[in-house]
């Protein structure tokens, strides 16, 4: 799902935030079941199991107790700009709201024995029933779920919430812009309930008596049950109440917690929602009394606090640590330092219309992988590992191909050779980078050094860090963007399928196709895979991944990513959520 913060895209910077939402794939645990992070990079687990039968209440976490306040520090992560469920496509916002405040059709639950994430029902009574060719999905809405004001959630409200996701104008950064508008029936003609006011939309229907919501697709969409796990696929109050952007400031909660106060980039406070009942929810708990999320926390201060072990830190957790303290954390916290795999890949995207395949190959050898990770505060081998493909580890169908026979590493001499053979010595690279953060600037210096050592000439365009590089890369009219021939994207899967990776990055015209890669045959193949039998699709995506890399090599995968979470002593069940690449908020409690 989503990109991670742009500075990170080029530099794969750690301190920077994952703006991206969910990945699929398994737990933080390696084979031995150890949650500690001393063993290097751990792959996400193979697949996400589904359990359509799961009903509330969720089984109690062993030893869990109620009460207490959990404080979550998010170092350098500004968090969501608003809380409108339809607009939530960042890993941070989605993981918090999905787990605590906003329910949708389906959801993920962590199996605390195996660490695997399981797709289970949420507001729907099961995982939905598709027709034979997956062009029509019907979900039955449970009758015991309520809003925070105690009113029951109706099928109409769910249908309305889903319909909102079609409006790319009102929710430009919502996940609906990628999925709803691509798969839902007539989404090319209907621009959403706010932009096309008053128009009738036939794609989503509901039956209040049978409590069903039916979604019609324009093409087979077998992953609708995964897509249902986005909070954007949940209810919204009818009428003016849910008008954007006002609704985003204080949305009505449906989960075990409701919003007490929200200051963007600063703080979000959640308190118990008394209207929520455990019986209505197959996966969430309501252990803590209160949650406090501190956005954009100072990384150094957060580290000090977490390492101090004082009363304040005992009930706190941090969603990131700085690399300089990795060894200390590993030693002091042990099991409470959780390494969570995220199904994410960092890429370099040379402009397909301006560069040749040889130049792109040379670039791959010119990227000083480990040095860049080091400079940007990652722990090489733990939070970043070399990548071979676009599909991240743990995604079923991922191919272990090596485009050059073996893992591409930093080899300036080889890059020089390739450039010389292609007659492109001294090829000029134009790239943008963020200024104002020492880590990003240091990483950029490493990149420039690597490129220069490899025989490239580099012109870099500094952009103040307040401006996301994505803003520049995705704006075709941007002055700087027009000069660039090297961009990048960090991308995480929305669910464990190649369909959330390859099309988003490589389909002609896709927003985050910053390489401007465009091959008709590839576009056609992407659409074709969606029509294949379900069990053949993963392998087909893997094969397509390899084919694209072998024939065109349009984007250079630079790293697969992992996150490190530090939990305080009294936080019970310190685990990560493998589906979202975030702490497992649903199952955390304060030990008494």
């Amino acid at each position, binding site marked *: 799902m989503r990109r991670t913060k742009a500075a990170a895209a080029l530099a794969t910077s750690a301190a920077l935030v994952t703006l991206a939402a969910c990945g699929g794939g398994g737990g933080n645990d390696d084979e031995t079941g150890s949650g500690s992070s001393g063993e290097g990079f751990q792959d996400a687990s193979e697949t996400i199991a589904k359990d359509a039968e799961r009903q509330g209440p969720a089984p109690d976490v062993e030893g869990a107790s109620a009460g207490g306040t959990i404080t979550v520090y998010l170092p350098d992560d500004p968090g969501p700009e608003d809380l409108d469920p339809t607009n939530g496509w960042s890993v941070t916002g989605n993981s918090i709201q999905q787990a605590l405040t906003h329910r949708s059709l389906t959801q993920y639950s962590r199996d605390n024995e195996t660490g695997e994430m399981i797709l289970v029902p949420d507001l729907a009574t099961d995982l939905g029933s598709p027709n034979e060719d997956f062009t029509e999905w019907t979900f039955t809405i449970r009758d015991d779920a309520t809003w925070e004001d105690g009113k029951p959630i109706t099928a109409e409200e769910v249908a309305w919430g889903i319909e909102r996701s079609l409006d790319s104008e009102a929710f430009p950064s919502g996940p609906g812009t990628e999925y709803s508008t691509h798969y839902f029936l007539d989404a090319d003609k209907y621009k959403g309930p706010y932009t096309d006011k008053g128009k009738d939309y036939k794609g989503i229907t509901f039956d209040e008596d049978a409590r069903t919501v039916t979604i019609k697709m324009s093409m087979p969409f077998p992953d609708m049950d995964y897509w249902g796990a986005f909070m954007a696929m949940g209810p919204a109050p009818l009428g003016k109440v849910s008008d954007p952007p006002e609704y985003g400031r204080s949305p009505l909660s449906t989960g075990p917690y409701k919003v007490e106060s929200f200051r963007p980039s600063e703080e979000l406070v959640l308190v118990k929602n008394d209207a929520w009942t455990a019986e209505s929810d197959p996966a969430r708990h309501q252990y803590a009394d209160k949650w406090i999320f501190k956005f954009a926390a100072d990384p150094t201060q957060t580290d000090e606090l977490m390492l101090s072990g004082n009363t304040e830190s005992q009930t706190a957790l941090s969603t990131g640590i700085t690399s300089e303290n990795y060894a200390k954390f590993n030693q002091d916290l042990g099991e409470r330092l959780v390494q969570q795999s995220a199904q994410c890949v960092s890429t370099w995207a040379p402009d397909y219309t301006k560069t040749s395949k040889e130049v792109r190959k040379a670039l791959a050898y010119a990227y000083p992988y480990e*040095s860049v*990770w080091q400079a940007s505060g990652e722990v090489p081998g733990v939070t970043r590992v070399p990548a071979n493909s676009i599909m991240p580890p743990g995604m079923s169908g991922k191919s272990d191909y090596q485009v050059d026979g073996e893992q591409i590493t930093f080899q300036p001499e080889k890059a020089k050779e390739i450039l010389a053979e292609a007659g492109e010595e001294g090829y000029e690279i134009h790239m943008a980078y963020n200024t104002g953060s020492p880590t990003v600037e240091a990483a950029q210096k490493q990149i420039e050094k690597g490129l220069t050592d490899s025989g490239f000439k580099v012109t870099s365009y500094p952009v103040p860090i307040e401006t996301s590089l994505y803003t520049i890369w995705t704006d075709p009219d941007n002055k700087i963007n027009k000069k660039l021939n090297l961009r990048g994207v960090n991308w995480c899967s929305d669910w464990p399928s190649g369909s959330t990776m390859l099309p988003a990055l490589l389909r002609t015209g896709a927003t985050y196709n910053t390489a401007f890669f465009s091959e008709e045959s590839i576009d056609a193949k992407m659409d074709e895979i969606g029509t294949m039998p379900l069990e053949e699709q993963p392998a087909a995506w893997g094969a397509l991944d390899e084919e694209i890399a072998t024939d065109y090599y349009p984007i250079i995968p630079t790293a697969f990513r992992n996150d490190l979470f530090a939990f305080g002593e009294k936080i019970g069940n310190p685990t990560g959520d493998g589906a979202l690449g975030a702490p497992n908020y649903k199952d955390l409690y304060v030990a008494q």
Partner: protein
Amino acid sequence: MSAPAAGPETLGSLSDEPDINDPNSKQAKEISGKSPMQIALGRLRKDKIAVTCAIIVLFFVLVAIFADLIAKAFGVSLDTVTACEVLECNFANPGVGYPKTGPPFHPFDPEHPLGLAPRTGADNLAHWVYGCRTSLLIAGTATVIASVTGIVVGLVAGFAGGVVDRILSFIIDFFLTIPFLLAALTISPIIIDRFGTSDSYETVQIVSLIAILSLFTWMSVARLIRGEVLSLREREFIHAARVLGMPTRRILFKELLPNLTAPIVISVSLMLPAFVAAEAGLAFLGIGVTGSASWGQTISNAVPYWSNYAAFLWQPLLGVVALVLALNLLGDAVRDAFDPKTRR
């Protein structure tokens, strides 16, 4: 022959020289010819703190001037190195993220006497030496510009009076109302936007920093000088010069200025350390010099390491503290030396 009455009597307390009664002797001539400046220097020479501070300041000045030679002598440079060649990049080894040689986990490494920076692998000595140059270059130039501007404006405003004085005073007050930090924060992104891609980005950064610093500090000098001039211009010797038909320029620079030496020297001696600190402070905030080596920038990078690699933080900090302290104490001593009321 009689000794000049003013000689030994007034200067005696300032001089350790034995009383000389022969005005033709060498010593007697020296004593009798002393200007206020010479008197002050003489006092300074005897002030142990002043001498020590002067030596420290001189050391920093020399380091700044000969930065290239010093770096070469130690075989270090500012060039970017591939981080993983000098830093421990294998997470399985102890000290991951820290230098493979030298502090904090390994013994002294003669190739990098002050060690290496974590994350980037940059040489600390080179950054310290060139940071010293940046610091003094900016502080020195800004001081000169600010004092010259302040002196000229103050002289003109004070001496001309009337409308000119009112206009100049208004300009002074106007600049005093602009908050310095806010202006610096605002201008920085504009500069990046305008010059970010040009080859002279680093020079532009330094020039703009000098401009910002001097633009917001000349007012205090101007006010000080204006006040002094206001009281001086009604004195007899100025009236006499006017009556004699001396051109205004000559009155300003030959009659007034020498009498303003003390306030000027004092304000300069206070401005220098303030600028050194301001440069480091702005760089720490990320709105000063970021393109080249700077102490403030190194300090800002080193803060997260204060517990694990304290030396990294201490080096630039020591530079700033020593330089600012020495300049301040020297400034104090200079003020005392120039103040005729001081008893020693």
